[in-house]
């Protein structure tokens, strides 16, 4: 876990230095300031209004234990709720859970389903994950051509796909 500390810390520093986002404005602004109590209230309000991103970030907060006690079951529930609204980020988070078997019973079919839904809704991580699943034959018969298709698509969407994945 510690090897990822630098990007997490630097990411938070970037946010604290003034990154402001727009998706669920008030909540995001508070989240930026690490004012998780305000962020939580705003996202809960957004969630009550049916905003998929607000619901997704609630899942992140419970997953990370930001302003609340860490609770992966609750995070999972929020992700599923947001995924029902076709939130691509939630599909990615669910896909990873099913792929790795963390917090849920490992299920490549479910992982494939969620990564596919995430990819169809614009998640580059999900596109990359689909490339991996078709490359490795996880949840589906291995298919190098389809793997390459998803890797190319992920690359086209700005995801830094390793060069070896794109070699003929």
């Amino acid at each position, binding site marked *: 876990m510690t090897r990822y500390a630098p*990007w997490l810390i630097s*990411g938070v520093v970037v946010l604290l230095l003034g990154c402001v*986002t727009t998706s669920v404005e008030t909540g995001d602004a508070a989240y930026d300031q690490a004012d998780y109590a305000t962020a939580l209230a705003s996202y809960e309000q957004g969630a009550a209004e049916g905003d998929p991103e607000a619901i997704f970030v609630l899942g992140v907060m419970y997953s990370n234990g930001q302003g609340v006690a860490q609770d992966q079951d609750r995070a999972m529930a929020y992700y599923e709720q947001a995924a029902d609204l076709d939130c691509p980020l939630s599909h990615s988070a669910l896909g990873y859970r099913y792929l790795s078997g963390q917090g849920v019973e490992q299920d490549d079919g479910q992982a494939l389903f969620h990564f596919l839904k995430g990819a169809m809704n614009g998640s580059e991580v999900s596109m990359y994950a689909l490339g991996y699943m078709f490359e490795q034959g996880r949840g589906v018969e291995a298919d190098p051509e389809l793997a390459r298709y998803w890797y190319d698509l992920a690359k086209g969407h700005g995801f830094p796909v390793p060069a070896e994945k794109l070699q003929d």
Partner: protein
Amino acid sequence: MVCDVSRALKKCTGIVLVLVAACVLVIPAYADNGGDTASRGERIAHLNSVIDFYSSLVDGYQADLDEINQRLENALTQDADRNSAAWADAVAALRLWDGLNNLNMALGPMIKERDDLITQPFDEAIQQLGDQNAQLRNRMDTIAEMLAEAVENQSIELWEYDAGVNLLRFLNAQILINNAKVHRLTLAKERALEGGTGGSSDGGNDGGNDPCFVAGTLVLMADGSAKPIQDVLPGDEVMTYSMELDQAGPGVVAETRRGLEDHFYTLGGTLKTNDAHRFYVQGQGTTVAEDLASGDMLQGLNGPVELAGVEYTGLAVASADNAMPVLAVYNIMVEETHAYYVALGEAWVLVHDDCSCDFREQEEGAR
């Protein structure tokens, strides 16, 4: 006729002398007066005064040249036996033309220096945002690589994966915000160049018909219902107002716009708009939000609506408490009439669908 041509020739010779003197003596003196000691604004003002003066000189002599050419043409067509005088006049006219060209060429570097000075702060700010975006993209790449590794190895904990996905979302949003700022700065730069002034490097207003109203702003539909502006779609019918017919009626939404804004005016305590959106003020045509004042009588659906107050929530406030978010803003384009009604408290007030165009001509034409 001879007398006319002679006068023209004398006049022409005098003009050429002035132009030559300007090219040789005056303009180099201005051009050499570098901006090392003067401030950028002073230098721009200085260059503008010189450019304006010599441009007016060129324009003035252009009129003289036209007059000379006309006289020359008259001499050639009406008195074919005076070819020598006509040719002398032609040579003089050509010399004048050459002098004007030289003056224009001498003005070129000055205009370039002024334009460079005007665009410099905008270009620097745009460059800064570009650099920031490059850094953000690098950071996104780092996080994406971590996520790719997680997919490959299923090696990291859930919260790390989730935090990574959320960070990607934040950073991507920041890039989009920066792109919007670059767009605004580019428009502001173009406006500053058109105006020949230093302008401001903060991007000014959005310009064009960029979005102006925050989400939740209610728009009056043609059937009398209210719809949040973010839900209005092309093809919807909104209530509009025809200047020609002098009455309200249905209008078709041609297009909708969405963008980002970070400074606002709140009108009557409820209606949040950017500085450049135009409101119809009774008897005054359209007025941008930043020029509205408490007590103004806005054009409402059922008669004048008194504006109860105008409050600015801008970047200065944002930097003071560091809490003002950038908000998504919306605008709709209405076919033909280019106007629609938005809710101001209990009333409906008429707004134009464009934030920055000069509508005076349209409105006067309509009247």
